[in-house]
């Protein structure tokens, strides 16, 4: 009888704990949403450009100053044989 009551009590305690943790998780998820939104706002092109141009002294490059680097595989070297077939 005592064991049943004890188990039942523990069960309730655990349910309270999980309920509290669930609420906490919801709150943290809400905070996370705000942080993600703030991060997204800070990563906006307008903000990055503003920081780059005003704080970091960067400039928008002219088109002819942008170089595209392309990597290509060299063709196989020309092979010849000095051996003369008999």
């Amino acid at each position, binding site marked *: 009888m005592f064991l049943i009551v004890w188990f039942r009590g523990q069960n309730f305690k655990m349910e309270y704990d999980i309920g509290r943790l669930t609420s906490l998780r919801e709150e943290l998820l809400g905070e996370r*949403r705000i942080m993600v939104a703030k991060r997204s706002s800070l990563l906006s092109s307008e903000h990055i450009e503003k920081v780059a141009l005003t704080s970091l002294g960067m400039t928008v490059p002219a088109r002819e100053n942008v170089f595209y680097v392309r990597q290509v595989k060299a063709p196989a070297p020309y092979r010849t044989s000095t051996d003369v077939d008999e």
Partner: protein
Amino acid sequence: MGTGRRRLSPMKLWDHDRTQVRLEKIKRRAIVVFTVLFFCMGIMVFRLIDLAIFEHDRLAGIAEKQIKGQKDIKPQRGIIWDRKMRQMATNVDAESVYVVPSRVENIQVFSKRLSRVLRVSAKNLSYKLKSKREKQFLWIERKIDPETADRLRDMMKRYRYRYIGLIKETKRYYPKGRTGAHIIGFTNVDNVGIAGIEMVYDRYLRGEKKSITFKKDARNNRMYSEIDWSATGNNLLLTIDEYIQHIVERELSEAVEKWEAKAASAIMMNPFTGEILAMANYPSFDPNEPGKYPPEQRRNRAVTDIYEPGSTIKAILAAGALEEGVVELDEEFDVSKGYIVVGGKAIRDVHKHEFLTFQEVIQKSSNVGAVQIGMRLGAEKYYSYLRAFGFGEKTGIDYPGEARGILRSVDKWSGTSLAALSIGQEIGVTPLQVLRAYAVIANGGLLMRPYIVSDIISPDGRIIKSTRPKVIRRVISPSTAETVREILKTVVEEGGTATKAYIKGNLVAGKTGTAQVFDPETGRYSRKRHISSFVGFVPADNPRIALIVVIFEPQKGSFGGVVAAPVFRNIVEQTLTYLNVPQEDERNQIILVRR
């Protein structure tokens, strides 16, 4: 009593009888007690059986009511992403303030204190509370900022107010601010989309309302329950690129300031698919606070406003004339008079020329030459081409409030209509219609349906609906499209009207437009008010992007080649760099050879 000593009585036989009697008494009492106990137990067992079996359903229902709470979960709207999954619209938690007016004791004092916290008028607050005195619930302020919510909590604690409270809600938030504001639109305070994409796709974004039950105790503390508390709508993936959108918006704002224009619009599109890469208007607004801006600033002019296209229509005229074979590419037109009289109305050229080939008529944007081409094509044919290119009908873009434009049927044309239409008058178009028509020339003759949302994605990542490029119809043959492309290239070259749209290293094909604004008061075209535009595509031979720039009523200039063409160049140069499109002559390519 006298001696204080008790005399012990001697043991006698009858003592045994007395013990027997006592035992009998105890036995009887025990029987009575056990009978009573047994009876009570019987009652209890009977009651337990009654509670557990006969009354079970009724009592279980009552108990369930006591330990189970119910809550309606308002779903969070889905997220809107740009084509590179950058968040354009999301949700954040916010708290809303409510009051139970019927329980407010002193409205004057309460309103004064509350107004100081919420920074609103105490008078208005007091009036609101008095007028709803009998109500049990009244919203005071929706979705306040966290700092105000903290101040309010302090106030509630200090004055022990029990008739005011905070409810957690979700608020729509646009992290990119003004970028893409006209496309995305905004929601009202109840998170219902009322403008832009938010409105068109509201039924997908808002999700399903969910009612859930959970376990609680007598103090309303929530206990564990295996319930999914989250409820979200579907997400949208746009065709818009946030960085290109920013470039376009920046260049438009600079142009409006430079030319002291009334407004400006620009749209960028993939001519082969109809995907809208950017769509911008200036002046713009912040969708996080749409109420602070007048409606004309929130309007997406690129889709909703119609204007006379002016000379940009000449490419359509040229395409029709070539397709019908009524002109030759090197055929000469006499424009030496500098004007042509049609139906008693003189149509003039801006610059006087002697003889111009068909190609030069478009390159130099000769009105006199265009009228001659239009006459040769004929009203019926020209009208059919204008219709085929999509004028006078909605493009079918997934955006609300699109204008159809104005294109009257031939039977309603006057004697001057054909000439006027040949130079882009007597026709009302939207910037999107013009861009789509140019995309036909860019992609080899196909009219595409433009679109902004490419995919609708469920909260668990499944693609619910996908938009694929849709060909409406073939308008001209690939060879005609190629010929017109070649002609449009010359517009940007030396001798053309849009040399300022020239981009070093990449060929541009396009056409300028300078339209006078019709003044309804005088019944004539205004000499002071213009709409300057440039529409084209680049790289001309293998177009990646088609772009239209329309500057409404610039004060410090008027010609499309002067006002709009440089904006086109600036936007395209930066976009090509961003899209990693190298210069066609390979001057800015470094090739590393790996052995």
